[in-house]
């Protein structure tokens, strides 16, 4: 049962590997960005799992219940920052892809390499 109990961590590892594989293996630039997003999403889940306490409620202070268990809000706040960084990365990446499409007429990396090699 211990293995099933760590279900979220197994998903983290799975997503991480799928994401990294997509970044490395696909030659389409948009797919690379998608892979990178999956990879980052896995880290988000890792952090969110770290902050969750079993039976813990949302970390909003309750005056009349002194022994309430709260989840740890810090990792959630941290990962909010990392998500924003991820959004910035994604939009910058997509903007670059649009300009690459305009400049080269393709978004396949191997075709871009071919064009570059021809020029040299």
């Amino acid at each position, binding site marked *: 049962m211990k293995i099933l109990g760590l279900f979220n961590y197994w998903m983290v590892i799975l997503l991480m590997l799928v994401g*990294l594989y997509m970044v490395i293996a696909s030659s389409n630039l948009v797919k690379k960005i998608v892979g990178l997003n999956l*990879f980052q999403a896995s880290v988000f889940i890792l952090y969110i799992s770290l902050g969750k306490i079993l039976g813990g409620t949302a970390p909003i202070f309750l005056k009349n219940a002194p022994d309430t268990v709260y989840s740890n809000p810090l990792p959630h706040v941290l990962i909010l920052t990392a998500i924003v960084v991820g959004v910035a990365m994604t939009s*910058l990446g997509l903007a*670059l892809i649009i*300009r690459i499409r305009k400049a*080269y007429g393709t978004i396949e990396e191997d075709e*871009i390499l071919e064009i570059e090699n021809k020029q040299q």
Partner: protein
Amino acid sequence: MQSHFLVLLVAIPLIAAPVCVLIKSRALVWALVSVVSGICFLLSVKLLILVSTSETALTYAIGFWDAPVGIQYRLDMVAAIVAFIVSLIAFIVALYSRVSLKDEIKAEKIPLFYSAYLLCLTGLLGITVTGDAFNLFVFMEISSLASYALISMGKNRAALISSFRYLIMGTIGATFLLIGIGLMYAHTGTLNMTDLAQRLPALLGKQSVQVSLAFIVIGLAIKSALFPVHIWLPGAYTHAPISVSAFLAGTATKVSIYALIRFLFTVFDQTYAVSKAHLGPAFIILAVVAMLFGSILALKQDNLKRMLAYSSIAQIGYLFLGIGLFSVSGLSATITHIFNHAIIKTTLFLVLGCMIYKLGHAQLSQLNGIGKRMPWTTAAFVIAGLSLIGVPLTAGFTSKWALVSATLEQEYLILTALIMFTSLLAIVYIWRVVEAAYFKEHETKTTTVKEAPLALLIPLWMLVILNIYFGIDTTINIEFARQAADSLFGS
């Protein structure tokens, strides 16, 4: 006010960056950026003096929330040296960029360019002053995202694909760092570096703490372009606008190496990194390959920007070699070389900037006879080149000397020989340029070319003079570096 200097170093460029977007006049934006980076430089000088005279590191609690609860800024000797060199380079490149950007970037994009430039500076200075592991990640991403945007503004369309490659590699590196920090937090419940340093030694037996070290080292190695994960660097430096190449070559990779030093020596125990994780031999082997690979490929390049980029890979090898020795003198050699190489490589890139401004290119095969046409520019290249090789009385000599004596101290004679050998290779690739510039008959194409304007030459020669100055007065790059290494090992 003096107590706030630490945060002002980061906050002033941060608030100036959005102001740039609001200003439409190019001259005004440039003036603002020059003033802001100048203020940062003065602040960093003052901070360096304060750190060198005080016994302990300077600290600052953001929002008056004390560590470990709040974010603490902490400046010790090594951080002060890196902050000094980053703001110095930023200041000089900002002065230089007004004229050199004219041909490279559309006029309406200039305010946005400078906004990204200041954000990049904010991030790099933030990494050096922060004492919080997660804050370091955030600043690293600020500087990286800004630098992807800066690189993509290059004239050539290849700048776009280079920037994209850097974005992919850089994001993977930063995410690795994020995983490492998360795993450390899971075990210790703190993100403050001093606090982590106290709690980690008891937990070093845990597998996930060991894995977190691995993630952090690999993530930062990608960011600092160590040999097998350097592939983003040549393209990025070759196709970026020349001011960006000069700025990033001098600062970005150096700051990543600073972050690595911070994690290996302050957060983790260096004895652990050596005896259990065996990082020493790994770094030394990769460093040696980087030194040979970078120098040999630099020999083959016709595009001088690309030649300097490969030379940078070799120099990053030297930096990792110093860390890999895991001795006080090795580490202090690395810090010395961080300082010197930033000055040397920025000078060389600025020389290319002058050539590109006048000739429209920096192809070695078309530079014949340039020494007579642009005497000041070429002379600057020769002096910076001598400094890169490590000739006495130049800054480069001090770092080569420190590195050689560090390898001799541990009797790694083969490493000493390799440092000598790669310096010989550096002589060869610098000589190719000198030969073309002075000893080959000039072609008709270059006969009409005159010397670069003073607006480019003055910042360039400021750096050239610093190259010689720091070869003679070695207070900062030898003595302070030694003190920094001592205190890192003592902690």
